[in-house]
């Protein structure tokens, strides 16, 4: 065997490196990593991918280091395939959110489907069984045909993958705003359950151990950036050799889940890792870097879907549904036998070596030889140059509701607006109940609830929510992001859950632009502060940058996902009114020290076509945390009939949603208001609409602000405020709220 790559072979050179996304400075650093030798095609392809923003977090890593990542419940923090938190009795819950924005913009069905497939692999790579999916979607306004198409196909793709693989999609969010028109966001979060002692890390270990690739065969899927090399090699006509859209195969992945978990339970593996972005390149080098070992990997052994693939194509292919594991040599036969049982292809493709070098072989020939640490740890990190923009970045939304409209029209307009209308036509396309853990389905409560029956008698439940209002972050990156985290925790409080940990996906524009850098910096500061206050450490997440279209950047969209624990599923809260005669109360706001809603960047102001304000009112985070504690305690005690946090649309929309979810009317008297519109439709963190026996609500008022608004009952929503009174039949509200149905004919 030749000891090192043929150094006389032609090298792609710096211009190709630039075309692959490296800067000239970075190329010089790569040459240095290579000991002064210019990288060949395989090496350059691998460096350019591992040193990309996506893999190396060049513009975000320094910021991410400021986030709180530790806490008593944390089992695995950022850095592993997913984070994990302790849920008691030796069990852990793993979870993570990830984006698939660009692939979804190109081919929404496959893009969204493979996004789900990818995040699920992160979960079972830890040895956790995937038990839930949530999705967070952003599109342009649905009056655009393109947006409707993207929505329809992305939802179908998520459903296709999640439904087929038997993991319930239990919640999510979808938001329509013009700045996402040319750059949609498709984020997916997955949750898994494992016995803590069965969980596995991804560090390769044990010189002489064997690297086994299992799952789908490798094709030219998603070769993406590296296609520059492909096209340099291929004649222009050779269409068939072009990189192609990644196609997901949930059936293959369902076999992979079972096969992976059985391999781990049988004690056959030393390490396990999924193949995601940058395929084998990233999976193998990360395993090597974490284990501080080297690897020899033979591309000739990789099962191919197309026979004539070049070594670099094999190394960077993003074919889906593949896993990589390390096992001891005498366990290889056992590993392959289990693969066969699950009708999954397994192949030994390499070995763990001593030298901390990653060598790529093709049979006897060495086609690449790189230092592992150079690939994985030495990518440059950049400082941001944040600068608050002096002029508004985003145009005002188109007005759809005139200022002359009255309260009656405004409530109907809000309930039927794309951002507030019922998501039922969407989430009914997802299986939300498979695996028999779902205690709260979509629209039954603010957070989904899963009963962990696996843990035996007296098992606890977990709750999950995902939230990321981008418009408010655009108005104020710090307080907007704080609001997103608080909303997530508020959703958990409504079902009686205490956050255990947080995951997040930072969707932003180009960080090299000072005002985007400012949005990102402020958002991360807000996320950190909020999660510290909530004692909900960040155990994982993802960053998606450069989300810009021809007409500018997206709204800065930090999507926050939280998982919390509730001891007794039978007391999980719900958002619908359940008993006629119950009192209805507003909890958390008092119009005074504890603040009240504001119309700044609210849904109402959006419908009215108002420009975004420069900044949002400050939030007393400690006060909000106190309110969450009180609401959670009341739900856990089984004292409340319903609990719903006040989010987009304010108090009146929250009450209307509780009416619709419970099929019961309400009569409210809000007394004299300084400003009727602000009182009814203002938004701010830390407000709740709850119902229950009057004494209970009054007792709650001894610890947090509570004002009784009215009574549950009848089949109308009646309100009196200042000199105004209005009344809506529930059927009219229901009709208005059904406005999304035509989007899914």
């Amino acid at each position, binding site marked *: 065997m030749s000891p090192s790559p043929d150094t006389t072979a032609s090298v792609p050179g710096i211009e190709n490196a630039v075309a692959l996304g490296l800067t000239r400075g970075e190329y010089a650093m790569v040459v240095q990593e290579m000991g002064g030798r210019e990288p060949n095609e395989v090496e350059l392809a691998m460096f350019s991918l591992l040193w990309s923003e996506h893999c190396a977090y060049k513009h975000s890593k320094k910021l991410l280091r400021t986030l709180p990542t530790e806490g008593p419940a944390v089992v695995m923090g950022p850095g592993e395939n997913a984070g994990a938190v302790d849920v008691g009795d030796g069990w852990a819950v793993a979870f993570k959110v990830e984006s698939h924005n660009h692939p979804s913009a190109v*081919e929404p069905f496959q893009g969204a489907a493979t996004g789900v497939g990818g995040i699920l692999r992160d979960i079972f790579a830890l040895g956790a069984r995937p038990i839930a999916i949530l999705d967070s979607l952003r599109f342009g306004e649905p009056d655009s045909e393109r947006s409707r198409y993207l929505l329809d196909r992305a939802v179908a793709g998520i459903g296709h993958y999640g439904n087929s693989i038997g993991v319930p999609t239990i919640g999510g969010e979808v938001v329509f705003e013009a700045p996402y028109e040319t750059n949609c966001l498709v984020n997916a979060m997955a949750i898994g359950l494992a016995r803590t002692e069965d969980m596995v890390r991804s560090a390769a270990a044990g010189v002489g151990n064997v690297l086994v690739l299992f799952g789908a065969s490798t094709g030219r*899927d998603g070769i993406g950036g590296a296609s520059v090399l492909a096209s340099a090699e291929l004649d222009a006509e050779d269409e068939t*050799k072009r990189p192609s859209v*990644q*196609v997901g195969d949930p059936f293959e992945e369902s076999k992979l889940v079972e096969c992976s978990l059985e391999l781990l339970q049988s004690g056959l593996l030393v390490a396990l890792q999924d193949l995601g972005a940058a395929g084998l390149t990233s999976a193998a080098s990360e395993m090597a870097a974490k284990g501080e070992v080297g690897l020899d990997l033979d591309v000739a052994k990789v099962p191919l879907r197309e026979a004539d693939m070049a070594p670099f194509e094999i190394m960077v292919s993003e074919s889906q549904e593949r896993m990589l594991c390390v096992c001891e040599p005498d366990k290889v036969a056992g590993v392959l036998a289990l693969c066969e049982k699950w009708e999954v292809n397994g192949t030994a493709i390499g070995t763990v070596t001593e030298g901390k070098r990653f060598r790529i072989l093709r049979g006897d020939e060495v086609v690449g030889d790189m230092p592992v640490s150079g690939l994985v740890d030495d990518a440059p990190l950049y400082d941001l140059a944040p600068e608050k923009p002096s002029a508004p970045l985003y145009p005002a939304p188109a007005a759809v509701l005139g200022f002359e409209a009255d309260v009656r029209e405004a409530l109907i307009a809000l309930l039927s607006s794309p951002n507030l209308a019922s998501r039922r036509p969407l989430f009914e396309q997802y299986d939300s109940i498979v695996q028999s853990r779902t205690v709260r389905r979509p629209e039954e409560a603010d957070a989904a609830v899963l009963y962990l029956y696996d843990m035996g008698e007296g098992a606890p439940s977990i709750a999950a929510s995902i939230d990321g209002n981008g418009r408010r972050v655009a108005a104020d990156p710090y307080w907007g992001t704080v609001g997103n985290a608080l909303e997530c925790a508020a959703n958990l409080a409504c079902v009686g859950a205490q956050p255990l940990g947080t995951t997040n996906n930072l969707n932003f524009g180009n960080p090299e632009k000072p005002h985007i850098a400012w949005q990102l910096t402020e958002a991360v500061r807000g996320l950190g502060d909020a999660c510290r206050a909530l004692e909900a450490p960040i155990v994982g997440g993802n960053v998606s940058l450069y989300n810009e279209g021809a007409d500018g950047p997206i709204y800065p969209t930090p999507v926050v996902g939280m998982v919390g624990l509730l001891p007794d599923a039978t007391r999980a809260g719900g958002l619908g009114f359940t008993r006629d005669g119950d009192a209805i109360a507003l909890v958390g706001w008092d119009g005074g020290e504890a603040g009240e809603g504001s119309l700044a960047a609210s849904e109402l102001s959006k419908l009215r076509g108002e420009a975004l304000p420069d900044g949002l009112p400050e939030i007393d985070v400690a006060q909000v945390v106190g309110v969450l504690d009180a609401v959670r305690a009341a739900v856990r005690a089984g004292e409340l009939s319903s609990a719903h946090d006040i989010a987009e649309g304010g108090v009146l929309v929250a009450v209307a949603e509780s009416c619709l979810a419970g099929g019961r009317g309400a009569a409210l008297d809000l007394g004299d208001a300084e400003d009727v519109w602000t009182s009814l439709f203002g938004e701010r963190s830390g407000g709740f609409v709850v119902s229950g026996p009057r004494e209970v609500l009054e007792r709650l008022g001894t610890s947090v602000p509570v004002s009784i608004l009215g009574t549950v009952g009848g089949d109308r929503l009646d309100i009196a405020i200042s000199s105004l009174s209005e009344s809506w039949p529930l059927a009219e509200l229901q009709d208005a709220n059904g406005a999304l149905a035509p989007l899914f004919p």
Partner: protein
Amino acid sequence: MRARVLIRPKAGILDPQGVAVERALPALGFGGVANVHVGRLVELDVEDEGQLDAMCRKLLANPLIEDYEIQTVTA
């Protein structure tokens, strides 16, 4: 005029259905089968044959992942 559109996964694109069928056939005693691909078939009456290609690109096929072939059928 009756037209037929054959829609198949583009070469190089993963075709999980084809793989599943290829695996199933030998188990049923049908040997010697290879290169199985599963696609879609659309048949329709059209007045203006010239529109077929545009129909395929716009609706019937997904050009990113599928190839199509238009045939006219003599009744």
